[in-house]
């Protein structure tokens, strides 16, 4: 059985604007892909531990040393909008 997905909800979570046509196509394609992918449940028994990384590493530290940052001008040259050495974004807080 193809999986039923609330496309509007998932698109909202992903911050993705989709056309009606895209939504219809994704509903169908993701349903089929997930039906296939759900096979993982057939063999993943309780006693099998999950693997996040094939070669596990943890607590990788380096000395906390001062180093030059990336050149601010080159970084901001990529920003859609910048002002006073900062990225500029649309208003996120409403003023009373």
């Amino acid at each position, binding site marked *: 059985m193809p999986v039923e*997905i609330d*496309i509007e909800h*998932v*698109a909202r*979570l*992903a*911050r*993705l*604007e*989709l056309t009606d046509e*895209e939504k219809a196509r*994704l509903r169908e*394609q*993701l349903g*089929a*892909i*997930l039906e*296939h*992918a*759900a*096979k*993982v*449940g*057939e*063999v*993943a*028994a309780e006693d*099998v*531990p*999950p*693997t*996040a*990384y*094939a*070669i596990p*590493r943890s607590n*990788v530290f*380096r000395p906390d040393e001062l180093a030059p940052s*990336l*050149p601010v001008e*080159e*970084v901001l*040259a*990529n*920003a*859609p*909008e910048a002002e006073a050495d900062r*990225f500029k*974004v*649309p*208003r*996120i807080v409403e003023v009373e």
Partner: protein
Amino acid sequence: MTELCDLTATELAARLRAGETTSAEISASCLARIDAVDDHVRAFLTRTDDLAREQAAATDELLAGPNAEAAPAAGIPIALKDVLSTRGVRSTCGSKILETYVPPYDCTPWQWLRADGSVLLGKTNCDEFAMGSSNENSAFGPVHNPWDLDTVPGGSSGGSAAAVAAGMAVWALGTDTGGSVRQPASLSGVVGLKPTYGLVSRYGLIAFASSLDTVGTFTRSVRDAATLLSAIAGKDPMDATSLDTPRRDYTEGLVEGVRGLRVGVIREAFGEGVEPGVRDSVRAGVDALERLGATVGEVSLPHTDYALSAYYLIAPSEASSNLARYDGVRYGLRVDGSDSVQMMTRTRGAGFGAEVKRRIMLGTYALSAGYYEAYYGQAQKVRTLIIRDYEAAFANYDVLVSPTSPTAAFPIGAKVDDPLAMYLNDVFTIPANLSGMPAISIPSGLDGRGLPVGLQLTAPVLEESRLLRAAHALEDAIGFDARPALITELAA
């Protein structure tokens, strides 16, 4: 007539040191080949002709100097997949959302190669954010396979594969998350190496799926693969997943042969869905290994069927998280909106292509409340089972053999409307990403239509030397010397 751009890096390095040619001549030969064929192939998204001439001249000066000690990669022109950051050179990831992005720093592999005197020819076309198996998901148009311009070169590193196959670059770097180096190498008739996860730094590799991403090599010989790997492998403090491995020369021991080597042929990789031309060519390769003195047996990896399912949950999940950074704030496209959320939503809707949207949606769903355990959680358990399969196989065998891809190159457009059929291209390459193991694809011959077939060898984690030694012996025995018609016609 063979031109400089058609030689291997090993041959070119010898000529450079003998004073028989210069890096300027080699680069000029590559640039002329790009001029001649890339209107048809479309391997390059950005050319860096001026930079190449400048770097070649600097290396020639170094080689002529009194201390002419140069690295093996010195003076050899290279092409880099466009997901690898290059300071001052546009890096698009094949996406509209990064069409004008110019990185303020170099990825570590290029930093090291540049320091060795390597010469950058340009950035190669690829599936958008490395998501794809045919290079048809590039926002800037598909790459055409030099062996047959109506077919795909494979993907996602299709531009790098095609550039090396057509002599536009002597060698190239790509990235391999589920087969994106090995599968295009197979379809394009070149050597593709995916090293152990963590052996090559990913600093500056624009992330797709962080627990699977690796940087790999495209070359026209196994020895070249060993040489290029030696230039880019080793511990890098800028990548927390970088393994504690010293810099070393992977060409050492390359010619020691395979006598006594235990070769396991993966049973599941010769079944339904594998083209007869692919099966026959790879079987002939296995016979060649046996004649060289290897012990050949059959081995089963029972969870092979589930690897694809696990991959298409894990990779999209990680991608949905990694690609959250494209929010119209710090770099890339911005489409204005009345507030920041609308701005982000519109930017992402306009900037991402169909496959990237599909994977972001798939991953977001698989990680969302209520579904996480059933999909992502279960997929991680399957990953454990895949690793156990390989551990069991390597208890009895030294290297494993399979086809790299179930098919040779297929026509452009043949699978674009069927994502599941497209995903099946990666069925034999994905396990090495899930298990972190090194694997290599070498050309095993041509199928009935004259298209190249790739044979894949896999070795345990950090056994690159063993892998390369087996691949070198087999390459020698197969003696693959066919060239794409596009190139042979050029010379005629």
